[in-house]
């Protein structure tokens, strides 16, 4: 079979799969442009008959979205930095050895993230309020997110370190590198991609974190975008079209950034770094 035909065929299949998978995203885009009741119409309309383009400007201004997004960014960057600093070393050690203590460590790490945030928030809130951490609410949220997501990061990054051949590190040590030197010069670069992908996944989760933020951050000036999104929800009224427009503004750039980044990370991986 000719290579070009094969590629075209695969691309075609890929496009169909993507179209199916991305349908909810499309539905979000379309619903934002529909009127409040048109989204409940039977049969469903796949294109809005009377698109309400002005909704984006309205949503952006009425919610001061710039500020919300900035807060999300601050929280996400803080949480990812903290997780990376604490988590990479931990994952490295857990990958390097094979004994009972490693088992215990892994077990503890998994166990510590079992409960959903909605059940963790009450004790964390009580604890934080007693030591005065709620005075700096964004920092408090960063700490809580870090605790929540670190196990995820450690388990994934450990898997990344597992793919780095032990002999390479040992060779570096024989060559006179210190442990720290071998770690930064040899091991870390080789596990780079797994770490980056994990960090990006964590970043996106922290960017959208909701349960901790809404309880701990009371001042609206410090709240992230996920909390702002919920200001369209009322006791009897949900402004679905505004919610979808808000989510469109928030999701699209993050998704675009990820498409660009993951391309370099996942694709560039085998380019000889390993050998």
């Amino acid at each position, binding site marked *: 079979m000719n290579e070009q035909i094969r590629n075209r065929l695969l691309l075609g299949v890929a496009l169909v799969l993507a179209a199916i998978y991305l349908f909810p995203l499309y539905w979000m885009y379309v619903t934002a442009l529909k009127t409040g009741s048109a989204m409940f*119409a039977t049969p469903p309309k796949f294109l809005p008959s009377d698109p309400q383009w002005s909704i984006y400007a309205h949503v952006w201004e009425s919610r001061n979205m710039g500020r919300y997004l900035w807060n999300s960014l601050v929280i996400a960057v803080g949480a990812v930095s903290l997780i990376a600093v604490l988590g990479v070393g931990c994952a490295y050690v857990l990958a390097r050895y094979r004994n009972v203590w490693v088992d215990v460590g892994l077990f503890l790490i998994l166990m510590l993230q079992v409960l959903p945030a909605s059940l963790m928030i009450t004790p964390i809130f009580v604890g934080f*309020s007693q030591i*005065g951490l709620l005075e700096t609410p964004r920092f408090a949220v960063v700490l809580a997110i870090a605790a929540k997501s670190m196990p995820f990061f450690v388990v994934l990054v450990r898997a990344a370190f597992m793919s780095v051949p032990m002999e390479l590190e040992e060779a570096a040590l024989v060559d006179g590198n210190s442990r720290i030197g071998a770690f930064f010069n040899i091991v870390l670069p080789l596990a780079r991609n797994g770490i980056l992908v994990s960090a990006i996944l964590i970043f996106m989760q922290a960017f959208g974190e909701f349960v901790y933020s809404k309880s701990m951050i009371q001042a609206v000036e410090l709240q992230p975008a996920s909390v702002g999104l919920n200001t369209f929800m009322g006791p009897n009224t949900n402004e679905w079209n505004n919610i979808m427009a808000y989510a469109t503004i928030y999701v699209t750039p993050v998704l675009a950034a990820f498409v660009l980044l993951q391309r370099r990370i996942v694709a560039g991986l085998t380019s000889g770094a390993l050998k």
Partner: protein
Amino acid sequence: MGIRRRAMLGVIALASISLPALSVHAEDVTITVWSLDRDIQPAPNLINDFNKLDTGIKVEYRQIQFDDVVSEAMRAYSTGQAPDIIAVDNPEHALFSSRGAFLDLTDMIAASSVVKPENYFPGPLASVTWEGKLYGIPKATNTIALYYNKDMFKAKGLDPEKPPQTWAELVDAARKLTDPAANVYGLAFSAKANEEGTFQFLPWAQMAGGGYDNINAEGVVKALDIWKTIIDEKLASPDSLTRGQWDSTGTFNSGNAAMAISGPWELDRMMQEAKFDWGVALLPVPEIGAERSSAMGDFNWAVFSSTRHPEEAFKVLEYFVSQDKRMFKDFGQLPARSDIAIPSTGEPLKDAALKVFLEQLKYAKPRGPHPQWPKISKAIQDAIQAALTGQMSSKDALEQAAEKIKGVLG
């Protein structure tokens, strides 16, 4: 670092305490208010106006989500960080007042020239009352009634000026209006497994001579059987079981349901988006002449007993009450008061609807009040869902609910 920071904070706190004593002019008292109102709703706007008056009281506002009001409030209260004033949903008011978390306002209200209990509808007033004392002030109120599509009535040979009056007429009309080929259901309502389901069902139970403390009465079984008929014959979408009132009424607006049971919060959206002639009728009763009843929704103001400035907090509440006449015109909410006439909006459809809702409000009954209302409500929701999915008969389901409720009431 931590110790130094705390020491610094201590110094700052000391300084700020001693400042008012030293300076000649007293510092502003700060009152914090939590409610679920957003930008276009009363609380934040009234607070802005109040702060402009420069009364020596500065009000700070925080918006919380409907779902989180109670959990946020008790978390804050148990850690000593409760706000001075909060708005809570009326069935949850007793939860706080029975436990002394809210301040008894009876004496302050008696001395007030602005807040007068006799001005309020009995339902909302009952919801802020606990053991004869007033623990809050009704903020606004709402209820439910029957919306119907007049154009569809005409098309199916029904008189658009004679909406169904009794349960039998409602089911009958729904049968005639249901048209699967045109994707039209006769009725839209909500039997969802949350407070909305209870909110929609209790009026039916009350009209039939029952109530939350008498949920297995014969009339209530009949009411639930009628709901079951409506679902079983697909006169309403089976999705009514998992859909709230707002989304259900959305299908009415889009022309996929001919009647809908919901409240006045729907009016603005319906005015804009319903492309047909519609009207509002009182909730149908079991038979002509039967007692009317309806649900009572919306929030109450309350002052936390932990406040350090009860008088100032009450002053803020008095200001809110003094602005009740703006409630409908500016924010589209109905004040819980019988002494305020709702001005004409200049839109005939809306004015006619409001007249019906105001009439219906006279029959509105509070849910409870009982400190464990959520458990009572849950028992009722479970019964509704068990019967409508056909897993239990209406009678058995309601018997079971009555048993659970008896356990709660003690």
